[in-house]
């Protein structure tokens, strides 16, 4: 069974033993504790129990975690050590983890130092930005040769400001002339939006001048209060910026000095995360003065261990099978080959707990289809080797690890099909032999080359598709029988088997002489039996006229099967795309002919071109292989919508605590 059987667990214990029990349950990591809101809303329960919670403690822990996280981020930002490509957890013995986790004081002071430096950097960056803004405001005035705080003389005012670029300066001068000849207008600079001007006028004529200025949209420049000429001011700002940069660098170095302590902070963070989860789990416990109550799920295989643990902690408990038809959390368990393909199932949606885990049924086909669509031995080798090395080097967990393993199998499959169809970087061997050695070499396909015999390949794709679909229908029939509805299996799957197989025999015999006349006849009768059967039984759940139309509707479903089978033609089309594009690349590379120049061109085109072809077609194969499962295969039987099993366990981010074997 690929969905793990779950058992319901409920237990009552003494509050005094609660913490120890929670700690041990967490270490065991196989029990999911349920939220108990419904019980609290139930009057019978609400009078007796209350929710156990401790939000203040959680908030305190979260605060400390936040600081640790900030410090880790700061280190990650300025770290001089090369970053690892993937995030993996370090393995650590429990004793060591606990010992390190106790060294709070040193780690906390370290976190304090790092965060102080990091905040210092943030402040300095803000300051630098402010200076930059001030500098930008000054830049248009850089050719102005008076100190910016000059306000004028005893009789004169000196003002600086801007008028819009659209305003005409000569016209402004004209307007000024009309009022007074005693003024001096200088255009300091102009850009796309504004003209920067400086104006000297007599104090007594201030009002007239201001009138004119207003008409031309003049606005005085703000914030130019600086002793000395603009040029000096700008260079002073630049010096300040330099200084700030140095300070930032110093602080960065300070953070870098602490980077060796990163591992300790990670342990600190993870130990806090465990504490937080342990505090949070109390939300799922109900308590009276002296006792607590918990409810949850545990996999049947682990039930014995859980029972032993509860017994040791003097709890009263009950572990029972779920009621018939009751939904349970979903945990999938599959063999070595199929397990990585759970990722594909999860990307769709988890199966309903009462349904079936499709993974073991499609895993083989997934790899098969992926390989057929990419179908190049060299590409397959690259994928398999790359994923193999990554998996050896990084202990990847979760979805990422599963996908890597899955692509490893897909790479092997690609290699297999590549050899069968004779694709090695497309036709690189032929091209190289022709271009450089003027020889005709063709690496023969072990089976056949789909480019030469596309119809054969198309038929083969359809046959594989047919098998795939029949398997899907078979699973559907199996589910019906398992749920005690054998007639449904016969009517909805069996009759279709008869009809479809009959149709293939009949049409194949008639049109292509695939089978002898006896076979054709059998096929014809099977078709008739199947079709009539479906017509009669298709509407069996309906009433009155619905019985007839239901049957017709079911029979009409045959178009769906036709479309489903045709959909598998993508196996041919995508396989061709890989092969032909690869040979386009090889042809392009060989355009310069033989010799050293030709070799260089070929190498460049080869590397870039095949990298592109591999990535785009691997993506295509991934997507379309998934699609064939999701749409064609899942459509036949799959019931999704289960909730994932979420055990209460040590959910750490950086450190994997080794489990003691017991």
């Amino acid at each position, binding site marked *: 069974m690929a969905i793990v059987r779950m058992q319901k667990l409920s237990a009552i214990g003494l509050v005094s033993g609660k913490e120890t029990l929670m700690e041990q349950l967490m270490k065991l990591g196989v029990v999911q504790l349920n939220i108990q809101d419904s019980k609290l809303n139930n009057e019978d329960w609400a009078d007796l129990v209350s929710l156990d919670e401790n939000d203040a403690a959680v908030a305190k822990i979260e605060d400390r975690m936040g600081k640790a996280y900030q410090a880790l981020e700061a280190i990650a930002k300025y770290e001089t050590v090369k970053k690892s490509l993937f995030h993996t957890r370090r393995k650590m013995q429990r004793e060591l983890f606990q010992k390190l986790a106790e060294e709070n004081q040193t780690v906390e002071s370290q976190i304090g130092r790092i965060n102080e430096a990091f905040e210092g950097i943030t402040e300095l960056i803000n300051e630098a930005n402010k200076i930059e803004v001030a500098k930008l405001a000054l830049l248009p005035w850089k050719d102005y040769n008076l100190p910016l705080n000059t306000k004028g003389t005893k009789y004169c005012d000196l003002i600086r400001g801007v008028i819009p670029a659209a305003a005409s300066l000569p016209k402004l001068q004209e307007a000024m002339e009309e009022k007074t000849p005693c003024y001096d207008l200088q255009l300091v600079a102009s850009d796309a939006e504004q003209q920067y001007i400086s104006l000297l006028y007599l104090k007594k004529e201030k009002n007239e001048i201001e009138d004119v200025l207003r008409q031309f949209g003049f606005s005085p420049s703000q914030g130019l209060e600086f002793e000395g000429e603009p040029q000096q001011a700008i260079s002073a700002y630049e010096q300040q910026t330099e200084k700030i940069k140095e300070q930032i660098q110093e602080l960065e170095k300070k953070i870098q000095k602490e980077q060796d302590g990163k591992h300790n902070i990670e342990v600190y963070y993870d130990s806090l995360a465990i504490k937080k989860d342990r505090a949070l789990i109390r939300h799922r416990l109900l308590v009276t003065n002296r006792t607590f109550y918990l409810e949850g799920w545990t996999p049947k295989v682990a039930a014995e261990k859980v029972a032993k643990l509860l017994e040791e902690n003097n709890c009263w408990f009950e572990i029972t099978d779920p009621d018939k038809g009751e939904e349970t959390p979903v945990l999938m368990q599959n063999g070595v080959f199929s397990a990585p393909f759970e990722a*594909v199932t999860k*990307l*769709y949606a988890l199966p309903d707990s009462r349904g079936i885990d499709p993974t073991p049924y499609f895993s083989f086909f997934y790899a098969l289809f992926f390989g057929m669509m990419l179908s190049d031995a060299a590409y397959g080798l690259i994928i398999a080797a790359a994923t193999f090395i990554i998996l050896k080097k990084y202990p990847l967990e979760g979805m990422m690890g599963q996908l890597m393993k899955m692509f490893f199998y897909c790479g092997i499959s690609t290699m297999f099909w590549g050899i069968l169809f004779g694709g090695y970087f497309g036709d690189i061997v032929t091209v190289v032999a022709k271009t450089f050695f003027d020889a005709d070499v063709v690496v023969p396909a072990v089976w056949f080359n789909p480019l030469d015999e*596309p*119809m054969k390949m*198309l038929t083969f794709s359809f046959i594989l598709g047919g098998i795939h679909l029949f398997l899907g229908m078979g699973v559907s029939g199996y589910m019906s029988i398992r749920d005690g509805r054998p007639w449904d299996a016969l009517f909805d799957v069996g009759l279709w088997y008869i009809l479809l197989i009959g149709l293939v025999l009949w049409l194949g015999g008639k049109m292509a002489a695939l089978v002898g006349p006896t076979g054709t006849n059998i096929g014809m009768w099977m078709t008739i039996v199947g079709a009539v059967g479906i017509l009669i039984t298709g509407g069996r759940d309906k009433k009155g006229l619905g019985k007839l139309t239901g049957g017709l509707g079911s029979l009409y479903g045959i178009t769906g099967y036709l479309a489903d089978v*045709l*959909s598998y*033609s*993508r196996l*041919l*089309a*995508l396989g*061709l*795309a890989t092969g*032909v*594009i690869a*040979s*386009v690349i090889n*042809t392009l590379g060989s355009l310069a002919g033989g010799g050293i120049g030709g070799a260089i061109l070929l190498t460049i085109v080869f590397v870039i071109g095949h990298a592109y072809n591999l990535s*785009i077609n691997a*993506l*295509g194969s991934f*997507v*379309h292989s*998934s*699609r064939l499962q*999701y*749409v064609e295969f899942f459509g036949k039987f799959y019931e999704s919508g289960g909730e994932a099993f979420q055990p209460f366990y040590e959910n750490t981010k950086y450190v994997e605590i080794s489990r003691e074997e017991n």
Partner: protein
Amino acid sequence: MITEMISTLFNGSYVAMLGAALAALAGIGSAKGVGIAGEAASAVVAEDPKKFGQALILQALPGTQGIYGLLIAFLIMLKIGLLGGNGMLPVTTEQGLYIFAAALPIFIVGIISGIAQGKAAASAIMLIAKRPEEIAKGMVYTAMVETYAVLALLISFLMLNGIQVG
């Protein structure tokens, strides 16, 4: 004069090359589709730069029509001897027109499905903006459109494969 022009226009090799050109024009659909998806991707990445990789994958999906077009164009060129270094093969007007017809499915379907797929990819990118864990569903919705480009490619290919030249 006019007959000469007409005979040039209906020269087999010329018509076949026209077919190759049309097939390659399926790239219009991809260009447009990838563009539409790219606009959506930039908007999403502006909010969360970490989604770059995911958005890029979705953006690449409408790119295949161009590849299918290229594939058919390349096969046509191979068929009439434009590539391969042995010189062009004699192509009759009839054969040229056959090849031209074979290019039509991927030309037309490629353009339209490329644009449609681009729109689907753009909304899939919007989907990952809110729920990055659901990228597989977005990919499948987008790939649904591509089915028809695949079918067109198949027909173009099978038609072309049935034509004998030289």
